[in-house]
């Protein structure tokens, strides 16, 4: 556990050791604000927050999940791919740590980064709380759901990062996987087919929407837990695979 925390801490501070993290989070906040407050015909066809006059942050969470499909793969792409490219992965693994500890530690570091980015958006519930009387349940559920989806994206990104030395390849692979599993519930509709329960069950969005209502359902928890654990296991074996040659 100590190893995991040490790797996690190192990873977390590594993010904030360069201006990139600050710029990335700032860009995320700007985009989130724009998507939340502004109505842009065709691009953002929704009701303006002040016009809707509803003390809810549901649209904010939905946009957060959407932005995360691009933002979080960009954060996770370097986790293992960079170490591989620089050759530092071998050095790290000569230390008394297992592959799983490395993977879990790096994931925790990235989740810490996610928590900072998400934590900064707490200004929004604060604003809504001052203007009205929001239901705290969906707010708490929304944040919990966003963290679960974000952690799952990071885990998938970490897995993609474990497959290659190229950060770009890892980034594209993670975006594709995250986007597919986020919007897979919409696929039948887009293809003019019937709604399929199997697609719903595999969709990040479907499970997120359920939690964002303010209901913590074990089915949704098991789903996100499975994605994270599955990705961590596969990423660990992906690192271990170098020993098999």
């Amino acid at each position, binding site marked *: 556990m100590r190893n995991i925390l040490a790797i996690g801490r190192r990873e977390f501070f590594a993010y904030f050791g360069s201006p990139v993290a*600050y710029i990335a989070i*700032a860009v995320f906040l*700007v985009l989130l*604000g724009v998507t939340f407050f502004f109505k842009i015909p065709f691009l953002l066809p929704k009701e303006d927050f002040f*016009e809707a006059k509803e003390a809810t942050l549901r649209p904010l969470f939905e946009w957060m999940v959407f932005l995360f499909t691009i933002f979080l793969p960009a954060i996770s792409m370097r986790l293992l791919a960079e170490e591989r490219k620089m050759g530092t992965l071998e050095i790290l693994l000569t230390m008394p740590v297992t592959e799983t500890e490395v993977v879990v530690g790096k994931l925790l570091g990235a989740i810490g980064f996610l928590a900072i980015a998400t934590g900064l958006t707490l200004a929004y519930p604060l604003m809504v709380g001052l203007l009205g009387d929001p*239901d705290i349940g969906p707010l708490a559920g929304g944040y919990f759901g966003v963290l679960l989806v974000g952690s799952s994206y990071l885990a998938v990104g970490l897995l993609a990062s474990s497959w290659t030395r190229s950060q770009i390849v890892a980034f594209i692979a993670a975006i594709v996987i995250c986007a597919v599993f986020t919007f897979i*519930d919409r696929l039948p509709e887009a293809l003019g087919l019937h709604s399929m329960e199997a697609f719903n*069950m595999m969709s990040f969005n479907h499970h997120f929407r359920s939690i964002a209502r303010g*209901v*913590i359902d074990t089915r949704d928890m098991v789903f996100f837990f499975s994605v994270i654990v599955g990705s961590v296991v596969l990423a660990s074996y992906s690192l271990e695979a170098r020993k098999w040659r």
Partner: protein
Amino acid sequence: MATTTKSGRSARTNAVITALSVLGILVLLNVLGLWVFGKLDLTDNQRYTLSAVSREAVQDLDSVNVQLFLSEELPPTLSTGWGRERDIRGVDREFGDKLEEYRSYSGGNMQITRVTEDIEKKAGEARLELFTGKEAEVEGGMLEFKKYAIGATFQYRNQMEVFPLAVEPAHFEFEITRILLRLKEKYEKSAGMQDLLDAGKVLADGAQACHDKLLSYEKGAEGGAGGLSVLVGGGEAMSALRLDRDGFRSTCGKVAAGLGTTQGFKGRNEYLDQLTGSATAYAEMVEEISKRIDDPQTQDRALAGAVERLKSLNDLVAKDNRTLKNSPGRKSIGFLCGHGEFCPFREAQPLIRPEIAGLMGQRNPLVQQFVGQAKQIEDQINAVNDQIRRGVFTQRGLALKRVNAGVDIPDDVEVLVVYGAQESLSDRDLYNLDQFLLSGRSVIIFLKNWNVSVYNIKKGGDGFDMRDLSFDELSRKPVAHGLDDILGHYGVDVRHDLVAEPRSFEALTVIQLQKQGQFTLQSQRRFPYPLLPTFSELDRTHVLVRRLASVTLPYVSTLALTEAASKDPDLETVELIRSSDGAVATDQPLRLAPPELLQQLGSLEPNGPHTVALVLAGGFKSFFQGKEVPARPEKPAADPRDPKPPEPDPVDRPFRDGGNGRLLVIGSDLGLENLSSERIFEGFNMGQLTSGTADFFMKLKDYMANFQNWQLRLSQISPIIQANLDFLFNCLDWGVQNEALVDIRSKGFVRRPIDSLSTGVRTAITLGLVVGLPALFILGGVLRFATRRKRS
């Protein structure tokens, strides 16, 4: 080239097996989770958790069988009309889950069976509401849109209730609990009127047996010709009918035989009387067909026509029997009509009687044209009222009954609603209301003290071109409903002002016309409008508003408790809805254009808080104590051409000088206005058609404008009306003493508005969060780097 060692291969094999095992376990966990799961509901109202009332409702019924109809391949959306689509993905799962939740609390009392074969066909037979998708399929040589079902039937002993279309997860608990409570009530009450129900069943079964007999002739005919082919002279079915004339008479004569029993129950139950009426028509048609069979001159076509009429009468008998079966324990909500109230019923009488219209139209073509146009408007009025009554009230299980002005209130009416009266109630109406209240039942009064028109269509003018419309009518006219004295007597002081909340109000949607060259463009704009105030200071100890976050009351007036009422120990009073301290109530003239109104109200001194809704329950004294009982209005002279015998005079009931009752008064009509011929054809009388001038025709434009203004006013505040429906239903359920349901309904959807903000504040918040927050974060980073550099 890298080679794989033996130990490497073995490690890889182990790793692959372990990884696959882990993934397999995870998949298994997800699949198992579909059956074994738990939920933690974090919402304020525990919106997704069954309430105690629902749990008790299911435990109270010793054996409920639920048949669940869920189409297998549901489309992702459901059309809700007006080109709108509703996302229904996952709704079937939620509905199934909700029923499972009830079953888990039922202690084995509830069984759920999922229909898996011929779902849509069986659902249709069970009277579920099927909806069509966008996909079409070829059925019997015809291209038909596919139909889908999401619903259930609930059977308890000999009683059945249907959840026809379950697409609104927020209302699942309310609807299911309502059905369970209704099943129990219906079963218990039906025991006391079993003889009436049995008599009705004899009639319906007789008609159904006759119907089946007729179908057997059609099926027996060569090639199975039936329906339309018979009408166009297929003939073989008619020959079969002629051959089996004795069989037809003995089977179809059972309806006439059954009528003998029901005649003895005449006057005991209005629903049985209605069924008797349709069954009498049925028996007469059977008699007519018998005569035609015997008459060799009668052609097959004429006989087939009569048979088709008999078939449609069977539908009517079956419908009336269903109404009778549903009637035990049903509580009606009486809506008083005849004083410009919101009264969602068909017109009792047409504006111009068809025979008179026909006669006058022959003499004057202008009259003929006027009558045609007027009939069109009247048909639209009836259609809209039907739509409101069925779509809004009946669909929610509320049984509405029209109570005409001057007429005694029927006994099965449990609550009397006086909804936005715009003309003075007669003394007799006030007397009826008074005696109704003192009989221990509930009276709900929605007051309309002002008739406010904002950017309505301006009437008058000489032209008849509808393109000359101008949407610039701004007016506020006082309404004299004549309720002030009686309400004052009960303890409610009605003030004829208008209340505005400076910080919390909704927007008004306004239609504007812009001339661009030869074209006139129509556009919609939303203006913040303080006369649509939102109140969040609600007395949450009262079931009516306990779970509501706020209520928006358009054009609302202040109410106050009289000193006598507040000191009366027999009376329990609740100030249900109050404004904030910063609210303004004024009876001074107001500039109604949105920007000017905001400016004017800004200059007025706040004088809140104001009460805008009051509940009084307990002992009331009659308003007519020591006064003469007002006489009933004179009945209009009987029409000699009307074959029906005149109705007998109602019996006078003993005068009550006091009694317990419940009174709810709200200072607004919630935005629902009267739509009736009387209102739309304001000022019209038959004499105008014979005056010899064409004035009546020129007035047609005003009548059309009246109708359009009604629609316009509705659309201006339609989101508010929608949001207020739960409050309205709460009031009606409270009235019929279904308070358990009130508590559940409000769990469904709670609108939580934010304060109305000026453009400056909005911009500041937007800039603060979109630009300020990221900039602050970047600044933090810069400071951190600077500090670190300084240290190093």
